[in-house]
């Protein structure tokens, strides 16, 4: 009899009760998952940080950063724990790292959840627009006014790592709001084989291509050039943007938000032609997916005559354990030279590096500690110590100090490059703009698209992204 009951159909009222219970559970789950309805109340702009640093906690506190995994991240954690602890013994610095390709996603998925496990986001300069528009980071304009000596910086450096809306290249709008302070400056350096092409680096882009061509012909097994071509992160996009700038092109007209007809004008087309038809043939076969590490590996193994890479990622090249160019740092430096980028129609170089930005979702005590850390980090003496520890500072006095200039053979390159820098677009749509450019330049470099078609597609698709803000449906395609 009990068996019959077990397999028998539940009575109608019983089924209704269970259905109602299931529905209620679903609703409860939905309500729980939707949180406290903050989404609907989210502010359209960033919340303001206090103008003065609030009272700091005396309890043990961990100040967490988020960055991508590369040597400067480890250098920052070691430096900050050694030096900042002298002033704030109860504070511990933790730099959480993710793979470069996941860096944007790791930060912005947490921002989307309105809850972050980091207090300071180390954002690429181009991420600022997205973070500010979504209210993810604090507006520190008043804090900077009261605590930071802004005259100690090249105005464009201060603007690039903190200002929104974006500053005009080379300038800073003193009336614009600031959302971050520089952490690590960076730009491209030209790495060249002194033993193969001579001590004097090429001065123009044309000369550089000729030198690479000759070097490749004279040295079988060594490719003329090595540079970023991958379709991940901003690899291929930065390469094209650099050549575009050097050949007098523009990425967009910021005032009219116009890309089509600007990016793919005659200068833009010439830059794409130089990149695909003159530079690409001088690279190693299969280098179409190379980024920072692969370029460094090619240089360290003596497989490239001339290479381009970020200065902050070049330290490993001088490590004899990672190089076949010599058994000591001096032997390696006998063969490797570091120079600012050659110029052609202009002398522009790409702006790299990142700034520090306080998470809007961090606890109040941690936000206060973050502001205190930033004030401490931007002090003249600390910037010089950061330079000596392998970092790239942003204060002019630190950039011109012996601590910085003597710390690495490429540091003079950075100091000389600062007045020549140009950044990409710093708009909320950055992630999509850079993906469009990356994939199309990568396609052109690997023969999947004709250079002209690739550039026209970039201009058309990017313009579509900028123009699609009011489209109903299909955003992101």
């Amino acid at each position, binding site marked *: 009899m009990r068996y019959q009951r*077990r397999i028998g159909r539940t009575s109608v009222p019983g089924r209704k009760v269970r259905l109602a219970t299931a529905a209620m559970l679903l609703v409860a789950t939905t309500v729980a998952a939707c949180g406290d309805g903050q989404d609907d109340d989210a502010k359209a702009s960033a919340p303001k940080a206090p103008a003065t640093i609030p009272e700091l906690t005396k309890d043990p506190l961990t100040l967490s950063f988020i960055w991508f995994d590369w040597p400067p991240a480890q250098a920052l954690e070691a430096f900050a724990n050694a030096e900042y602890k002298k002033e704030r013994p109860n504070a511990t610095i933790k730099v959480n790292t993710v793979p470069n390709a996941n860096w944007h996603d790791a930060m912005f998925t947490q921002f989307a959840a309105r809850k972050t496990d980091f207090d300071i986001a180390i954002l690429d300069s181009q991420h600022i627009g997205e973070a500010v528009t979504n209210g993810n980071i604090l507006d520190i304009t008043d804090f900077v006014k009261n605590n930071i000596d802004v005259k100690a910086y090249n105005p464009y450096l201060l603007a690039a790592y903190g200002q929104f809306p974006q500053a005009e290249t080379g300038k800073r709008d003193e009336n614009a709001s600031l959302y971050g302070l520089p952490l690590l400056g960076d730009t491209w350096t030209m790495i060249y084989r002194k033993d193969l092409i001579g001590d004097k680096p090429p001065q123009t882009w044309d000369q550089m291509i000729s030198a690479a061509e000759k070097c490749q012909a004279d040295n079988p097994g060594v490719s003329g050039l090595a540079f970023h071509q991958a379709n991940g992160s901003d690899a291929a996009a930065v390469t094209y943007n650099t050549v575009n700038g050097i050949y007098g092109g523009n990425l967009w007209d910021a005032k009219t938000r116009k890309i089509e007809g600007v990016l793919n004008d005659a200068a833009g087309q010439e830059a794409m032609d130089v990149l695909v038809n003159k530079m690409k043939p001088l690279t190693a076969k299969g280098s179409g997916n190379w980024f920072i590490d692969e370029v460094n590996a090619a240089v360290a193994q003596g497989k490239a005559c001339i290479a381009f890479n970020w200065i902050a990622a070049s330290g490993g090249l001088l490590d004899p354990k990672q190089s076949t160019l010599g058994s000591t740092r001096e032997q390696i430096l006998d063969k490797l030279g570091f120079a600012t980028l050659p110029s052609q129609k202009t002398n522009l170089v790409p702006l790299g590096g990142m700034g520090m930005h306080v998470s809007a979702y961090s606890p109040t005590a941690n936000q206060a500690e973050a502001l205190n850390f930033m004030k401490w980090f931007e002090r003249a003496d600390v910037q010089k110590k950061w330079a000596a520890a392998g970092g790239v500072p942003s204060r002019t006095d630190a950039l011109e100090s012996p601590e910085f200039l003597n710390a690495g053979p490429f540091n003079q390159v950075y100091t000389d490059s600062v007045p020549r820098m140009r950044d990409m677009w710093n708009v909320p749509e950055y992630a999509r703009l850079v993906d469009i450019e990356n994939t199309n330049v990568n396609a052109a470099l690997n023969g999947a698209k004709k250079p002209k078609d690739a550039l026209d597609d970039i201009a058309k698709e990017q313009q579509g992204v900028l123009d699609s803000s009011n489209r109903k449906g299909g955003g992101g395609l």
Partner: protein
Amino acid sequence: MSDPAPLTIDNPGQVASTAPPAPGRSRRLSDRGLAVAFISPAMLLLLAMSVFPLLWSLYLSFTDYSATRGGPANFIGFGNYTAILTSAQVHTRALTTLIYVIGAVGLQTVLGFGIAYLISRRTHGRGVLTTLFLVPMMLSPVVVGLFWRFMLDAQFGVVNSMLGSVGLGQVEWLTRQRTALISLIVVDTWQWTPFIMLIALAGLSAVPKYLYEAASIDRASEWFRFRTITLPLVWPLLLIAVMFRAIEAFRLFDLVYILTNGGPGVSTETLSFHIYKVAFLGFNTGTASAYGILMVLVVIVLTQFYLRYLNKLKEG
């Protein structure tokens, strides 16, 4: 001596309630209560982790919601669906995915069945061979992707090194349009052929021996036995394996992410990879939700057709 228990009763509940409880069990917990108690944790988990996200993304798919921008989710009807279905970008990714699914699953089926057929004919070492063939399937796709990325590197990879040793030139496996997609198919085939092999082996082991014995008595050829006995009996099981693999291949993401990142250009971007970009590069959550729902619908519809064909096959 007590009366025998009646075989039928008018009110079964009455008897159940008067039956003595099992030793150690609470008087208040009936069998059904116990069943509900056991099932409810799994049901709650299922509701929270599967049913709710599915319904929530279904709702979001009709809105312009963005996870990072916040703000209200405005209802836009079928706007996202229309945009996806008419997008040339989506059509390109759909074609890439289709080529990949047909190439990878086709190759895996032929190889998997072939290996299973050869193993099934061995009498010694079957277990060891089967275990060895299963090893790739046990590895994480990310690990598989990473070591194949090294092996296929044009400059330093072992594959080109081997080709070079036999006098063949370097091949740009991951950076050329055609070879990149072929590389993905080869790596997926390396990893998932054992799955088809395992299912086919189970089917081959279940074929009754007496059929082969009868065929031998009639002096049937090897090919005749394969065509009229082996293949028809293993076919339905093989088709189920193919269906599982096709669904898996249809939503391929990990290998693409590690091996080619969708390149060169977007030539190896699959539908899943494209959804990832829509969802996380621009945080267009509404569009990404609609995209995901459409992919689920495609799988459900195709699976239904497939299952009907399988049922017909059984009935036949």
